[in-house]
């Protein structure tokens, strides 16, 4: 059949081959742009921006969720306590499900022999994923960190990353979903073609969620142009952020 196609449509076939770029599925390096609509941890696939899958809260988790006052999503209001508005670190899970739109919707992956580094453009933050076979630390024996402790491994062509000991002050996403410091996070990355990366995140947190809660499939597109330009270094600067929030009366709790 392919032979027939070559004979009958040689130009078309050649074009198809050239469009299908070769890639190494275990090479995730590059600048990856989150593709809309990545607005929340678990969007309803195909729903557009603003709709999320209902979270399987425990009673304690529901209470924690009610205490978070987001500026986005179905619960958004003028009175907020979003850590984002206080220039606090976003934390790993929120970096991954971040709300930032183009052109600040990028993370870069750098693969080293024994580590993977992931740089988040918005808030100029980064995390490390150890790939040398080491075990995760016992969460009871380490202090929690904003981006936790992460180890990765390859399962076929999927990069599976497990993380523990993430600081409980961060939100899962901008809609205000909480997590506790007992959360275990698993990310599964898969490069499905030369330009597309898939990510599914699963939260296992018995304090907040009655069962493991998975995100929808997040899609990223390789941005070769961004690899050539200077980094924007987007910090949250309190001396800029707080006067701005006072100016527009955002209603956020901006000072500790």
């Amino acid at each position, binding site marked *: 059949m392919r032979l027939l196609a070559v004979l009958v449509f040689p130009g078309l076939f050649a074009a198809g081959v050239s469009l299908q770029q070769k890639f190494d599925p275990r090479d995730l390096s590059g600048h990856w742009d989150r593709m809309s609509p990545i607005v929340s941890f678990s969007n309803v696939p195909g729903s557009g921006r603003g709709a999320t899958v209902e979270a399987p809260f425990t009673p304690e988790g529901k209470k924690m969720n009610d205490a978070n006052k987001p*500026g986005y999503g179905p619960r958004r209001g*003028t009175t907020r306590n979003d850590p*984002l508005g206080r220039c606090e670190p976003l934390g790993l899970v929120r970096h991954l499900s971040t709300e930032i*739109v183009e052109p600040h919707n990028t993370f870069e992956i750098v693969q080293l022999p024994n580590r993977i580094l992931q740089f988040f453009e918005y808030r100029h933050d980064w995390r490390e994923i150890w790939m040398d076979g080491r075990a995760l630390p016992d969460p009871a024996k380490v202090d929690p960190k904003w981006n936790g402790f992460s180890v990765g491994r390859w399962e076929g062509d999927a990069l599976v990353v497990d993380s523990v000991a993430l600081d409980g002050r961060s939100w899962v996403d901008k809609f205000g979903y909480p997590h506790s410091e007992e959360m275990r996070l698993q990310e599964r990355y898969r490069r499905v073609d030369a330009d597309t990366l898939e990510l599914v995140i699963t939260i296992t947190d018995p304090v907040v969620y009655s069962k493991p809660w998975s995100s929808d499939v997040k899609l990223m597109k390789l941005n070769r142009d961004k690899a050539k330009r200077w980094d924007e270094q987007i910090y949250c600067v309190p001396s800029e952020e707080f006067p701005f929030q006072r100016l*527009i009366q955002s209603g956020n709790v901006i000072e500790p």
Partner: protein
Amino acid sequence: MRLSGKALIFCFFLAAPAFAHHGGGVEYFMDQTRGPVTGTVTGFAFTFPHPYIEFEVKNASGAIEKWAAVFQPTPTNLRAAGWTRDSVKPGDTLTVSGPPHKSASNVIFARRVEINGKLLEQGGGGN
């Protein structure tokens, strides 16, 4: 152009979260336009998340009122449209129109901006 009800609802969900972090969907009456308001620039904060211009306006009784015009695009977006931190300087004449803030009477969403009589395009984007 006519938009169907479903299309309008879709547009709302598309637009609202992009405005919600620091303004717009919550802080501004996005379906209204105020201005044009003209005043003298006193400052230009070309900073994340959203640049803003501070300016003074002489009101009907001759008193000076302090105003601010807030952009939706980030500095990156504005730079792509040709802006720099020197695009607006103290002493410039600003004429601005856009949605009014819901509670801060002298804050305006900078939809259309003229500096010294020249329209400055903003490009798109912002969060």
